[in-house]
């Protein structure tokens, strides 16, 4: 869509000029968003409206603006984006524009170009007619970087108005004191919908998944096709494999909930076994690793991104220890993700939410309310935060998915009835539109 902002001033309410302009936009095949309306207080006071007008092509927009101009709608002066060269590798020019995670457009000459990807805390590099969000490490000396705010337009994400959208009616955060089953069931239905539409689901997981005994539930999600990507640290992989080999997680017996004898050695021996096999995938292929989260990921083609930290033991093969390199890999794997489940891993979750467009939905599950609010506040229109232990959450989620799939199977078998109802609804809306 091509768009432009126009302003209307005068007695535009009493003269019905505002409704006329809005009707003209719609009947011409365009659309509008009202940015601001100020109604005069006294009889002689004039009113003001700022309206963003969109049309399917540049030509259609020009025609439409010409028609609106005769009713007094004046286009705001268009300013081009200002550019300056990067002074050195890894350095932005002074006053460089810092991105948000919202959809952003840059005006270059007559055209508006969308900045891709829509990620926060980046600069914008212009190359011909493309606009890229770039991090420090992407910048090369001489790159043309957007400076100042002229010619940059941010389109804030609108909160969904659909009452059926779980991300609308949850209102961001569910505290520890409130029931969660209904929300988690809805979420299960949402995941089924996303999977059926071919969307990609990312899990960002911490070792708490294994510590709390929820590994089996996550394994089920993976085997049933509800996980396409897994981002984690060294810990999740190590404790998952330790639990498969020894039945412990950091030495804690998961069955008895008690420390096992010389249990502190177990995770070191698990790492050593994987190193000896040549890596996680090789361990699966050699049938050294036969169960667990990592095993399921390898078996079902889930992309695993393990990034290391300074306190890691090992690390286990496959962990990227260069933080900048890990960021690049994660960004690359985030491009086509529809929803992210973040569970028991505050630092990895913050890292991922920093790289996400505001349009991506996220679900944050953590026992620590501070961790939940920290992450949901960045994606406030598209996030659900649940303050709870990971294990009961995953158990309910798996049950919710099963319930949603059962319901779907039942409705699939009565398709004929569904079609009749749909036809009825369509007829009603046509009738209303014709009035």
């Amino acid at each position, binding site marked *: 869509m091509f768009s432009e902002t126009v302003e209307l*001033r*005068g*007695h535009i309410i*009493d*003269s*019905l*000029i505002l*409704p*006329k302009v809005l009707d003209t936009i719609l009947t011409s095949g365009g659309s509008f968003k009202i940015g601001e309306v100020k109604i005069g207080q006294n*009889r*002689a006071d*004039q009113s003001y409206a700022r309206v963003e007008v969109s049309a399917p092509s540049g030509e259609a927009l020009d025609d439409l603006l010409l028609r609106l101009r*005769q*009713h*007094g709608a*004046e286009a705001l002066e268009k300013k081009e984006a200002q550019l300056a060269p990067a002074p050195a590798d890894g350095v932005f020019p002074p006053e460089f524009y810092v991105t948000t995670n919202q959809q952003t457009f840059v005006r270059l000459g007559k055209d508006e170009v969308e900045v891709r990807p829509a990620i926060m805390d980046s600069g914008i590099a212009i190359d011909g007619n493309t606009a890229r969000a770039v991090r420090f490490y992407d910048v090369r000396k001489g790159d043309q970087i957007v400076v100042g705010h002229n010619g940059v337009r941010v389109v804030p994400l609108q909160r969904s108005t659909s009452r059926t959208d779980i991300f609308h009616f949850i209102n961001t955060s569910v505290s520890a004191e409130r029931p969660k089953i209904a929300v988690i069931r809805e979420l299960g239905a949402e995941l089924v919908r996303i999977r059926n539409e071919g969307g990609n689901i990312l899990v960002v997981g911490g070792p708490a998944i294994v510590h709390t005994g929820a590994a089996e539930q996550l394994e089920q999600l993976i085997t049933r096709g509800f996980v396409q990507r897994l981002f984690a640290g060294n810990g999740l992989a190590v404790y998952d494999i330790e639990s498969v080999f020894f039945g412990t997680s950091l030495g804690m017996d998961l069955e008895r909930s008690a420390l096992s004898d010389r249990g502190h050695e177990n995770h070191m021996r698990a790492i050593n076994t994987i190193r000896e096999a040549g890596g996680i995938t090789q361990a699966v292929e050699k049938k050294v690793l036969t169960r667990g989260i990592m095993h399921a990921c390898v078996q079902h083609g889930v992309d695993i991104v393990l990034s290391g930290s300074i306190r890691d033991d090992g690390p286990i093969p496959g962990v990227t220890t260069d933080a900048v390199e890990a960021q690049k890999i994660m960004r690359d794997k985030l491009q086509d993700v529809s929803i992210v489940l973040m569970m028991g891993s505050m630092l990895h979750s913050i890292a991922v939410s920093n790289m996400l467009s505001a349009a991506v939905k996220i679900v944050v599950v953590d026992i620590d309310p501070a961790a939940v609010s920290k992450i949901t506040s960045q994606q406030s229109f598209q996030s659900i935060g649940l303050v709870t232990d990971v294990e009961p959450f995953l158990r309910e989620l798996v049950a919710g998915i099963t319930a949603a799939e059962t319901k779907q199977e039942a409705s699939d078998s009565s398709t004929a009835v569904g079609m009749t109802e749909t036809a009825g609804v369509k007829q009603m809306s046509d009738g209303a539109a014709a009035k």
Partner: protein
Amino acid sequence: MRDLLLCPPDHYGIEYEINPWMSRARGADTPMVQAQWRGLYEKLCSLKANVSLVTPQPKLPDMVFTANAGLTVGRRFIPSNFRHQERSGEAPFFAKFMEERGYEIVWLPENLYFEGEGDALFGADALFCGYKFRTDINSHRAVADLLGCLVISVELVDPRFYHIDTCFCPLPDGGAFWFPGAFDEYGQRAIRDRIPDIIDVPEEEATFFCCNAVVLERDIVLPQGPDKLIAKLRDRGYTCHPLPMTEFLKAGGACKCLTMFMPQRESCKV
């Protein structure tokens, strides 16, 4: 007693074509022009109006249509910014005339076309302004700023009725008569919202330019022909004075186009 401005038709003629009524092939008959204009002048004088005359200028044939000189409110005169080059030469003469009589002259920005009382008529509680053919809607905003009054902007859609005074005539009782077909549906609604008690004029009478009338309290001076309208106005207690206006219709004008109120209103307060 109302003060009016007229201009003798000494240089009047169809010398160019800037509206659908004008045709250089159909010129005006000079003796009839003089007789019809004098008929109007004498009628207005007889209705106890105080008529001033501006000196006509050669090569400005439409100067006779003084309604387009500008808009006068109290002692302020807003001169027109004519859309057509052919008429723009009139503005300085009208401004000078008004200035010499002690009016404050307030020009609108040059880029805003505005054709005075022809497109700005006070009625009910507002100033009704037409736009599109001659006047820009943006000039309405400037006029509203200057006068501090409510301006109802209405779009004119029929090129035969290119000024609002050709299709809409407010009455002192808060009513009006009009040809609704000259306005788009939003303009029609905006006018009806403020003047619910409005008399519709059928198209065959509207084309006599019967809405182009000079209203002086209970007397209405209008072109000959609209018998249905005259009957309705009589029922409402008005006395109609129909006059022959055929020679001025050839240029798209009639009684009101030939007359400007000095002032149209003393103030914008309702």
